[in-house]
């Protein structure tokens, strides 16, 4: 039986049916383990109120042989330009500086409708697949044959907050669980001593909506993303007590032991309330996590070769104030390497952010003024670490059951804004995926000659389709992975989503 601290809890307290308590408080044991437990105890079938809670039973949805067990999501905050990274458009170069007229009225977010703007970077083909990539994501050339590109993603609006939420949670208003929370809810934990869903934020801050992007919302709190601030003095909130002078290792051990005794006596006088025992155990698991987490986050044992591969600068150095590629590589590389260590140790879902909120000077991908200035360092930064992560996972045999998903808020326009920038393009952008049952080396759903809209406007790809595909590879029917909240059986894919069959290996 799996006794994760996040997926806790033995059968329930008085006052709630055992099954209901488990689901309401988060299932505890991880959906599948729990379902097994319930089945073994005949609880799913035999109880008088059977049928009242099945909406919150993820095992109902677990119907396909799973191809993947873990997910890494790379999220570019601020909206990364598909046509400067992955979606090669020779027309932009041919007609650089000429008026850009797609033959219809274009509604832009900031009215930045300048002339056609060529990418400042050269593209060239890579790998067996001959996929064209921009020079600022050249490191990905080494793994390009692992990747599956989707170039016809469409969003709902060009508003950062809504678009970030949509890609992160499947809804464009706050109050819905992040996709990592859904995966945690569906699959539970593989290592009770570490969180199931870990978020590695940008060092500069949070993206639009902050924690709403990795919140558990109505799902029980243990499914919420746990923030790990890579490189910070206290990477996990409250993992250790602050330095106060009166807390010592010996005092902690003795204190926990006294607590346990008093709690045991208290519980013994109150038979039949399993929450009391569960809470005692949560303190034991917390103590185990205090040992397990620092070990997982410690990069000092990694070889110089590994550090170099991830673009990590092993020396401690002062970085310039301006955004620069070396620092982006180092910071993002550390997160990617940390992700690999976490995945190896059983973390289900790691979300890595590049860029934070919208401000000046730019600290994310929202390049209204100057694509070259922001996209250059950010792209080199993330692509170095991402390529290293994919290679590393592959070498360790983890890529075959780990999905890597690259996404962003929306794309950017083929025309110029403020001379050298690009305005928002919610009508077309790119995602790529690899590993975990994704068909390698393919490109699906082309965009039009400008990268302005999908080539086939009637059949675009939406975030729901990406999420449905991901859930399918994890073994779920996305229409059945539900949680009833305020009278609605909520899904990651809302009422939409089609599995993109051609992306399945």
């Amino acid at each position, binding site marked *: 039986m799996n006794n994760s601290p*996040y997926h806790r809890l033995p059968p329930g307290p008085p006052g709630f049916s055992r099954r209901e308590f488990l689901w309401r408080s988060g299932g505890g044991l991880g959906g599948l383990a729990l379902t097994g437990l319930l089945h073994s105890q005949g609880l799913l079938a035999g109880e008088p109120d059977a049928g009242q809670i099945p909406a919150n039973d993820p095992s109902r949805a677990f119907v396909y042989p799973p191809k993947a067990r873990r997910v890494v999501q790379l999220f570019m905050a601020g909206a990364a330009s598909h046509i400067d990274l992955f979606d090669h458009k020779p027309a932009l170069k041919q007609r650089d500086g000429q008026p850009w007229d797609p033959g219809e009225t274009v509604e832009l977010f900031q009215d930045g409708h300048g002339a056609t703007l060529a990418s400042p970077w050269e593209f060239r083909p890579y790998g067996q697949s001959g996929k064209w990539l921009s020079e600022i994501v050249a490191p990905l050339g080494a793994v390009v044959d692992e990747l599956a590109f989707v170039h016809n993603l469409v969003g709902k609006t060009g508003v950062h907050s809504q678009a970030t939420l949509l890609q992160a949670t499947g809804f464009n208003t*706050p109050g819905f669980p992040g996709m990592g929370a859904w995966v945690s809810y569906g699959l539970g934990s593989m290592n009770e001593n570490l969180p199931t869903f870990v978020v590695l934020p940008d060092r500069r801050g*949070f993206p639009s*909506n902050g924690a709403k992007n990795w919140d558990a919302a109505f799902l029980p*709190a*243990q499914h919420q993303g746990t923030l790990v601030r890579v490189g910070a003095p206290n990477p996990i909130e409250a993992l250790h007590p602050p330095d106060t002078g009166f807390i010592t290792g010996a005092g902690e051990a003795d204190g926990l032991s006294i607590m346990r005794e008093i709690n045991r006596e208290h519980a013994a006088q109150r038979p039949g309330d399993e929450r009391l025992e569960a809470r005692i155990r949560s*303190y034991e698991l917390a103590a185990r996590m205090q040992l397990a987490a620092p070990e997982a986050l410690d990069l000092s044992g990694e070889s110089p070769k590994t550090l170099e591969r991830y673009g990590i600068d092993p020396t401690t150095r002062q970085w310039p104030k301006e955004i620069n590629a070396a620092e982006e590589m180092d910071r993002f590389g550390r997160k990617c390497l940390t992700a690999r260590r976490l995945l190896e140790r059983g973390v289900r879902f790691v979300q890595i952010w590049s860029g934070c*909120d919208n401000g000046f000077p730019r600290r994310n991908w929202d390049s209204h003024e100057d694509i070259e200035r922001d996209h250059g360092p950010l792209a080199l930064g993330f692509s170095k670490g991402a390529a290293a992560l994919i290679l590393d996972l592959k070498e360790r045999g983890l890529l075959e059951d780990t999905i890597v998903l690259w996404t962003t808020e929306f794309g950017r326009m083929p025309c110029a804004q403020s001379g050298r920038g690009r305005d928002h393009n919610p009508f077309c952008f790119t995602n790529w995926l690899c590993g975990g049952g994704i068909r390698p080396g393919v490109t699906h759903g082309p965009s039009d000659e400008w990268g302005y809209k999908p080539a086939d406007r009637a059949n675009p790809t939406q975030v729901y389709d990406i999420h449905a595909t991901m859930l399918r590879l994890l073994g779920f029917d996305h229409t059945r992975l539900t949680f009833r909240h305020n009278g609605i059986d909520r899904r990651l894919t809302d009422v939409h989503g089609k599995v993109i069959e051609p992306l399945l290996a």
Partner: protein
Amino acid sequence: MLGLLFAQVPSSLGAEDDLSPPRPASETVDFERDIRPIFERACIDCHGPEKQKSGYRLDSRNAALNGGDVSAPNIRPGDSAGSPLIRFVAGLDTDLRMPARGEALSTEEVNRLRAWIDQGAVWPESASPPTPDPLDWWSLKPLARPACPPVSEAGWVRNPIDAFVLARLEEHGLSPAPEADRRTLIRRLSFDLLGLPPAPAEVEDFVNDPAPDAYARLVDRLLASPRHGERWARHWLDVVHYGDTHGYDKDQPRPNAWPYRDYVIRALDEDKPYGRFVREQLAGDVLYPGTEDGIVALGFIAAGPWDLIGHAEVPETKVDGQIARMLDRDDMVANTLTTFCSTTVHCARCHNHKFDPIQQVDYYRLQAVFAALDRADKSYDPDPALAQQRAALDRRLHRIKARKQDLDAVLTAAGGPELNALDQAIAAARDRAKTGQRAEFGWHSAIESAPDTVKWVQVDLGEPVAIAAVEYVGCHDDFNGIGDGFGFPPRFKIELSDDPEFHDDVRLLADRTEADAPNPGVKPQRIEAAGGRGRFVRITATRLAPRQNDFIFALAEVRVFDQEGRNVALKATVTASDSIEAPPRWSRINLVDGYAYGAGESDASKETGAELERRRSEWVAANVPAELLASLETVRREQQETEAAIAALPPPRKVYAGTVHSGSGSFRGTGAEGGRPRPIHVLARGDVRQPRDEVRPGTLPFIPGTPDEFGLPNPHPEGARRAALARWVTDPRNPLTWRSIVNRVWQHHFGRGLVDSPNDFGRMGQAPSHPELLDWLASEFVARGGSLKDLHRLIVTSATYRQASVVSLDALEQGRRIDVDNRLLWRMNRRKLEAEAVRDAMLAVAGKLDLTMGGPGFQDFVVEKPEHSPHYQYHLADPNDPSLHRRSIYRFLVRSQPQPFMAALDCADPSMSVDRRNQTLTALQALALRNDRLVIALAAAFAERLTAESTDAGSRIERAFRLALGRPATPDEREALTGYARQHGLPNACRVLFNLNEFTFVD
């Protein structure tokens, strides 16, 4: 593999090349025999009772013949070739082929369908399933007061609640638990009613009080405590998803949200009748004019998150702007129906509700109720006398202005074309002066924390030019009340060079670096250059301009004139030491865009407004009759006096509320149109690009005999819509409102509601465990005038509530066998304290709780980078700062960055309606309770308190147990903790107490 394409090829019909549908069959078609099986095999999964894709279904005659979002009617009797259904299933429409999934229809089946349609699409009424009565659902049935059921153990019954509960227990062969002991009862009551532990003396008084009414007096005392409103307001704010920031992108603070939070506390403490409480929150301004509560209660409408960028940066003319506003109204509608009526109405935004009798049109009628509103600060005067005075002055000013208008009309008529021409010139001059603030303010440097950073900006003229003069203009920005001359540096110099780096061959044109120069505001300043040649003109600030607590350099415009007087800097390339680049306002290119604030006034070819005004006065004095002049003068003086009187009033207060907003830029609101509601249409699939019929304001068809539309006269003020909705919600016949609130109250006393889905009484929710009790409570509540305190008293004085949570092993075994959920209440539920109660209890026990009520929330974080997206840094707050030791209800609630300690303890998420808290027990929660900095600080404070109040180690531990747990320590506990405190210090022993199960659970 590049460009792998996956066109979906439908299974062939054999008619792929033929653009006409297959021929119809010739024999007579029978619906039941020939047609229904086709629908059931191929269509019903997506177009039936479960799903209605595109709003279309093929399981009932009416819907099949008339329904559908896209191409209705899809079946045209007698015309199979013209029926879209045939085009779809025959594969003739390349965009839409049906069925979308699964096997296509055979040619024979298509032929059969054609024949059926051509023969008139006969669909016998008997073939459609009977429509169930939509109101045949427990929560929609009229409220009736049931009689108390008979019970055999009548002696146990303290009030009717017990009779209803006991009757069900006896039905199932169960008996209630014995009454809990007094120590347990006072702790339970204190946390339930106040959210705080009882003081040791209060415990001992109650335990030793022999009077028969000791319990009743305790309940009365607790209900009268101001702590009660603070406790129960938190439950309410969970449901209405109140927060102190907007959420979404940038998550800016909402400094005036708190008056609504204080209103809720006040209303609960004053025991405001529930009906009035509801009406005030929807339409207090209309229904209770002239009251403070009638205004601040409107904070309810604005309680939820707000998409600042979707409103402030995107106008309603754009699709994204419409979506943002539609979603904003959606939140208002959902908040209203969820909170007051426990109904999930928002499903109907995209389609008719699948489970409850709510049509899309009903939903949009509700959106129409809020169609005039936005979320914004609303001004009000808390003092009714002051409010009246302000209103009287406003009316007076209005009258004066009307009279002035009349007199001006007379004057215009008398003045003829000459005066008219002057007036037009004045208006034009005023416009010229006012058109300043266009969006492009100028160039703005990065922000510095000290004034003595050197910053420069320079213009590249493209080639060396012989320069006559350089002109520069300061900016205008109302930020921090600065206005003209915003960002203008007190010390600076202007140089000319051919070297872009300004190392070589630099010619100084102006030097103001020795002493602070006066700020020229927005008046253009000209520096003569006497024909000096150079390609680059650089302005360098050697001392920056103060802004708030920081320093900047900003300029609106730089002009460089050549010998012919041409501005050669226009559209030149601008570089700078740095630039915040926040277009459209702040951008390097704005420096040479030919526009600066107040530019019109500097146009030398036009007379200034002042000159024109002087000419007009001269003309009037010479040509207008004295009597009219005197009247004009009187009106002018009266206007001035009235405006001065208004200005002399204390400034109005503000509450963030649902209100008619008068704004500018993209976020204009409806104020400029006098608050006329935006037109609301039914939106196909909830898509703003697919508007259907316009709707009038109305509500759900849940009260038989009341119309779904309010039937308001045209025109009507927008508030009439909200007032109508408020009346509907609080109509005694509304089946939902009264059941909803008594269930919420019940839930917080027993840990679960009689209906265990408090926000949803629909078909997806739970059925009530005691339907008669629920109805009796609701009826009793209405009969008692909606007094929440009476309801609390009724519940907590019942024998049901007073049961022990611990029962004998036999009773436990029997209870769990028959009713494992304890739905029937054969004992009391043990409850886990919420985040707020845990934090407040620690503060109280440590002797640090600050009971100051009301006002702006305390901020247990430090804000960094406030200018764009504030970073709320909790770890920078000082846990020993006494201003952070107020009750948790007064915490400033940030939506994007939840407080880590409170979030670990499952506090409510202000981005969604929380009807019941999650209750998790995770390792991260254990870590938070052990290691959070506030917990550590309070453990130390608790230890100090014990040291001050008791003299020896043993009695300190004894006192600690009484404070923290309301009971004496057992000898074992005392010994263990005394020893531990001796070895590791009393603060660590206090930390152990804070972390005990007993601290967090209430029996």
